[in-house]
């Protein structure tokens, strides 16, 4: 058993860490407060190569393994959840479905600019009445002649309405299967198509510098060649995408937990009460010990899940476990980190406050913690 990372992975971690600390850390608090997506940091992240990490070189990607992608996401999340969201959604949800299920023409058309970060792409699964129950998609597409005519709406779509969003992949009902259940297919819809409107959502508790959108389709017509993969494969494609996406949410939990730990350790060693650094009180030192223990376990689980994926082994269960566990580890670490900061931990000036808020999404996005437990329970033969 070899737990060491490759030299490239070590260099990648150092480089992304430096980048995150120098370019994102100084602006993260203000962007969060203003609830603003930054095109400037987006451009820099693109130039560093944070988009298209697992895409082959032919389409403009970096041809790295999944572990590398996860390390990069983790390092961004160590500094800021919103930026990590832009990267994780950009890669797993935006680029992923196009790369894995697109035909040659679609890949050639969209991937190169998505891989440089010049454009972004949204992943439209969730609807107002179809969240955890994503199979209950209501958005309808009539396939008629050489066109798809789409009606319906999507909600909470990351990267769906930025100025550089090139389009979205939307799961639509395209008919009824022989067994009477809805036939679901994924359709690519470019920004600017008549009848398609993407509206930015405001007032979020967390990920405030990440773009979240509602999508509206009103007799929106796209050519038939915008179908992604074979008709009727949509639900399968979305679930495949979420398996990979869960690893990146896991990376956000792990990186966020690490960020909380690093800040908590530093602060506890500096803050003096009763004549000594508060880390000298056992009750606090034990919190730090627990955090570091939990982070270590979370990292092993997440990297193992990535390793399974990189080695073409089944990893759905481990992905669900890693997503769930890393999110919960960050929950506990953020909680400890705020507690160790005392009153200052509740103030915006100390970033643990932001981490505490950003954590909550991880229990909900890309399948809630309850849904992850359902997935795991099914796969171990429980449900």
């Amino acid at each position: 058993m070899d737990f060491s990372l490759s030299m490239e992975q070590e260099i990648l971690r150092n480089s992304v860490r430096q980048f995150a600390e120098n370019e994102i850390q100084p602006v993260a608090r203000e962007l969060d407060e203003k609830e603003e997506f930054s095109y400037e940091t987006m451009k820099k992240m693109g130039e560093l190569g944070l988009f298209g990490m697992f895409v082959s070189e032919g389409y403009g990607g970096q041809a790295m393994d999944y572990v590398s992608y996860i390390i990069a996401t983790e390092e961004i999340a160590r500094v800021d959840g919103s930026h990590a969201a832009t990267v994780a959604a950009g890669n797993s949800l935006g680029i992923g479905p196009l790369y894995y299920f697109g035909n040659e023409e679609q890949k050639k058309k969209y991937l190169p600019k998505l891989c440089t970060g010049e454009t972004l792409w949204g992943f439209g699964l969730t609807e107002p009445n179809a969240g955890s129950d994503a199979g209950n998609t209501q958005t309808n597409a009539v396939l008629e002649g050489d066109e798809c005519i789409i009606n319906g709406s999507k909600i909470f779509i990351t990267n769906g309405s930025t100025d550089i969003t090139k389009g979205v992949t939307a799961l639509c009902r395209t008919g009824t299967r022989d067994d009477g259940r809805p036939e679901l297919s994924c359709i690519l819809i470019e920004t600017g198509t008549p009848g398609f409107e993407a509206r930015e959502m405001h007032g979020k508790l967390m990920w405030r510098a990440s773009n979240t959108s509602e999508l509206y389709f009103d007799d929106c017509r796209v050519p038939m060649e915008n179908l992604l993969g074979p008709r009727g494969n949509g639900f399968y494609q979305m679930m495949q995408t979420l398996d990979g996406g869960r690893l990146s949410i896991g990376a956000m939990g792990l990186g966020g937990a690490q960020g909380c730990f690093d800040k908590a350790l530093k602060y506890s060693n500096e803050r003096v009460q009763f004549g000594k650094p508060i880390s000298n009180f056992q009750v606090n030192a034990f919190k730090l010990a627990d955090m570091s223990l939990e982070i270590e376990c979370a990292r092993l689980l997440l990297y193992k899940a990535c390793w399974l994926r990189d080695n073409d082994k089944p990893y759905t269960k481990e992905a669900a476990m890693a997503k769930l566990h890393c999110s919960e580890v960050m929950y506990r670490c953020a909680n400890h980190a705020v507690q160790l900061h005392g009153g200052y931990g509740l103030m915006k000036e100390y970033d643990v406050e932001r981490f505490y808020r950003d954590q909550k999404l991880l229990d909900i996005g890309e399948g809630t913690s309850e849904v992850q437990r359902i997935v795991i329970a099914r796969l171990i033969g429980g449900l």
Partner: protein
Amino acid sequence: MNIIVCLKQVPDTDSQIKVAPDGNSIVTDDVKWVMNPYDEFGVEEALQIKEKMGGEVTVIGLGPKRVTESIRTALAMGADKGILINDPALENSDALATGRALAAAIKGLDYDLIFTGQRGVDDDMGLVGATLAEFLDIPQLSIIVKAEISEDGKSVKVNRAVEGQTLVIESSLPAVITTQKGLNEPRYASLPGIMKAKKKPLEEKTLADLGLDPSQVGEGARKLKIMELTPPPQRETGKIIEGETPEEKAAELVRLLHEEAKLI
């Protein structure tokens, strides 16, 4: 323009430094090793010159196998080739022996310009640039914040900050330039760069390859001996100056500086 950048690996400034039981070295078990920040300036400057004038950038590191990671990082930033001088006999070499080994590796290469950091942030000696230039018998321009190569590539004009003024020096090439903060903003190793670096050549050389004798380097050849390392003294807790008004506080500060600290 062929440029050589010398690179040292040093403990990350975030690493906790502990003095080893022998009293004159540090415990390296938990140390995270990184490229000396001044050498990053050298890599960046070399890359900028190459981008403008063409040519090749070669990175040379000296030390154990782990230094490969820093060399690969420089290759990921955009350098073309790497050389690692790795020989157990080199352990504990001083700046003279390091300069000697680097010079031996560089002598056979085709070069116009060499960058080293003005100092390593570990032991802060600041001597390798000078010893290297001496062994190669070429000029050394130290602690440089700006470098401009002439159009014909035969000379260089550099700036050094001195006491609020700027000293401008011109030199023929080849020369050694030692870098100072302010020279440039080093780029990050980009992800595509990291993948490209995998395929770039990296040679490893021993003392024998360089035609050097083990007796010329290492602990035995040291002209400088480290007698003792001590950790910096514990910082004492600060004192808050009491007083009702700024005037009162200032007066109290002056009194304390005079009577207690005996500074004024």
